[in-house]
């Protein structure tokens, strides 16, 4: 087992959303540098279960960096020290033998802790329900070439659509603002012809829902963009600001 690591984990433990919660310290031994961060937690949880203790609750699903479920705030940064990866794609080789690693849940009024490291991100779902869609009649899909889309627009829309809704932007933001997430979801439609019919209504409704959820306001620190595992650009926030101001000034609705 040469090359394996011994680490100290300081993990946030909280029974439920009303519990005050506190840090627990867990030494973990013989961790392979090739394990993912979540696999390291699996090892810890196996041990806790064998000891008859409560395992650490954390969110995860695909474990290949595309679902947006994993959500750990590691040593002061969402998804840990690497850029452009989620926690499941963070490997233990990014740490050194003997390190102490502090693991916390996302912190935001809009993301209440469910248990330990798992938070309730349904605020994002409600923002999407408010307008993050296009309304189309059912039936056969029309021929793709019947709607011309410039390549640059298609690329920009796709780049915005790569947002996996993990919430790292909110977690990284000193104001717990959701502007990067909401702006990506506004932009992916605003850039395409199919999104034009509901463009104004969409941005107005989604921003109103974002505010109602209790997210903070954006101060353009850029922390969200730097920490986003999908590299969503701040230019989406500018586009949403433009669309929002334009929609408020010109919408037909009273």
């Amino acid at each position, binding site marked *: 087992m040469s090359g394996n690591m011994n680490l100290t984990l300081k993990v946030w433990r909280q029974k439920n959303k009303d519990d005050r919660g506190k840090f627990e310290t867990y030494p973990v031994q013989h961790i392979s540098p090739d394990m993912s961060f979540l696999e390291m937690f699996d090892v810890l949880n196996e041990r806790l279960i064998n000891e008859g203790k409560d395992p650490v609750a954390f969110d995860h699903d695909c474990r290949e960096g595309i679902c947006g479920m994993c959500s750990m*705030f590691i040593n*002061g940064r969402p998804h840990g020290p690497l850029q452009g990866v989620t926690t499941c794609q963070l490997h233990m080789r990014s740490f050194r033998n003997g390190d102490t690693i*502090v693991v916390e849940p996302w912190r935001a009024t809009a993301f209440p802790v469910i248990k330990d490291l798992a938070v309730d991100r349904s605020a994002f779902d409600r923002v999407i329900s408010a307008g993050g869609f296009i309304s189309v009649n059912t039936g056969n899909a029309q021929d793709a070439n019947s709607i011309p889309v410039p390549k640059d627009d298609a690329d920009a829309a796709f780049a915005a659509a790569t947002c996996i809704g993990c919430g790292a932007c909110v977690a990284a933001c000193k104001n717990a603002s959701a502007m990067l997430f909401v702006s990506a979801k506004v932009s992916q439609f605003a850039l395409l012809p199919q999104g034009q019919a509901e463009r104004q209504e969409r941005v107005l409704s989604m921003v109103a829902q974002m505010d109602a959820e209790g*997210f903070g306001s954006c101060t353009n*620190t850029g922390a969200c963009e*730097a920490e986003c595992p999908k590299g969503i650009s701040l230019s989406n926030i*500018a586009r949403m600001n*433009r*669309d929002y101001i334009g929609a408020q000034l010109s*919408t037909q609705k009273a």
Partner: protein
Amino acid sequence: MSWFTRMFTSTIGQKLIVALTGLFLSTFLVVHMVGNLQLFKDDQGMSFNLYSVFMTSNPLIKTVSYILYLSILFHAFKGLHLAYKNLKARPVGYAVVNGKANSHWTSRSMGVLGTIILVFIVVHMNDFWAEYKFGHIPYVQYEENLQTGEIKSKPYIDEAGNPKTIAKKVEETIISKDGIDYKLTITKDLYAEVAEAFNNPLLVLLYVIAMFAVGFHLFHGFKSGFQTLGLNHPRYNPAIQFLSTWVFAVIIPAGFAAMPLYFLLIK
């Protein structure tokens, strides 16, 4: 709720207020700095004092100045209000935050920097603006030799040495002595007030600290304002970045800081 209320109670609408007032205040700084460069002119303060008269009597500038006072209040209090709301968006903080990994410290310190500037503005306006408008600044009389351009100044006092005043803000007359024309100018001597105030090292220190705060505040604030307005494009982002850094974070605060230092150390 009307669309207007809805817009300006939304987070984006409130930020729009902060951005628009902030950018307006930035343009004011340019004018204020360039105008005040006249403090460096070696004419016993005549051009600076005449500039002060112009700035407090021209109707257009007076109108703009009231918009300016409102902008300062809106910018400061809306900014602080949003900062308070942003604190409430994360009631339980992190034990460890590695902010420098993802953002510049100025962008995370706008509230603190802005508060330093607000305190400075109160002191600054109390020292000069309120003093000029409501205080008792003594008058000065300049005698400019229109042939040689030489300027002499003396306090505007009566024979007993008591300060005299005039009804207008400035009085200019041309007189002839020995075939040479002289221009006599009588006006409030704000220049002397400035020179006297900046003899106090503590006040100068406050000014220099405040100018560092202005520089750091605008280093983030100027470009942030454009982003809030939705103006973010590779075509003009470099220009905004350049203005943010060199004009608003370096040249403007350095020019302002040079003024008190000039009176303390050189004059």
